[in-house]
């Protein structure tokens, strides 16, 4: 599948793609049934689906003559990484501040 490779946040920044993901939280859906919910053309919907697929947000299975889209966990990992990063980041920074404050106090009492 050829679709521009976007990062996680660019992928979810688009309202149509978010809507697709929201619909898929309820159930797996065919590309056709997803497309029925949008005013845009089917190829346009298809393009969004390719982007979601490329970023690991959904998997696509051919079942009979239909293509089924299902949510996939991979795409959501970046979000967790982000939270974890900043959690650790602040923890270490606040510790550093403590060391600094203590050092400062010692100098004062000298």
């Amino acid at each position: 599948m050829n679709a521009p490779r976007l990062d996680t946040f660019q992928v979810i920044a688009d309202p149509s793609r978010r809507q697709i993901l929201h619909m898929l939280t309820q159930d797996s859906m065919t590309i056709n049934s997803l497309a029925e919910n949008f005013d845009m053309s089917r190829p346009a919907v298809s393009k969004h689906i390719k982007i979601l697929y490329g970023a690991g947000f959904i998997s696509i299975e051919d079942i009979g003559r239909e293509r089924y889209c299902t949510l996939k966990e991979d795409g959501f990992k970046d979000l967790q990484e982000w939270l974890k990063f900043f959690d650790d980041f602040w923890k270490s920074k606040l510790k550093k501040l403590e060391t600094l404050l203590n050092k400062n106090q010692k100098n004062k009492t000298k």
Partner: protein
Amino acid sequence: MKNTITQTIRYEHSPEEVWEYLTKPELISQWLMPNNFEPVKGHDFEFRTKPIPSLNLDGIMYCRVIEIVPNEKLIYSWKGGPEKGITTLDTIVEWTLEAKDNGTELHLVQTGFNEENISIFSAMQGGWNQNLNKIITLLSTATK
């Protein structure tokens, strides 16, 4: 899934002392990052660090002072992205200082981690097993 980072740490120093380290650029840079902060509401400033490729951040945090109450409270926006002009991280950092037993309890809250994205994630986790079961059913029907 949580979308807020909260941390509390106690320092054996007065709120006035801790406040200095939150609001004086040269002191902030000693424990946090090089910056051009000014304790003025509406002031735009930046924190600069090394790029963080794993998070697709270029290492510059674009910030604006939203609220400032000396020795008590400091709120600024905290935004970043892969390059200038593209914001993918859009959060708010809130500091609160509380005098306690001759020291200070410093509270940090960082919010806004793409709340909409997180809501999709939570919804997804709820429906996860259900989705898997659905696809298994579909697959087994298709192969019949």
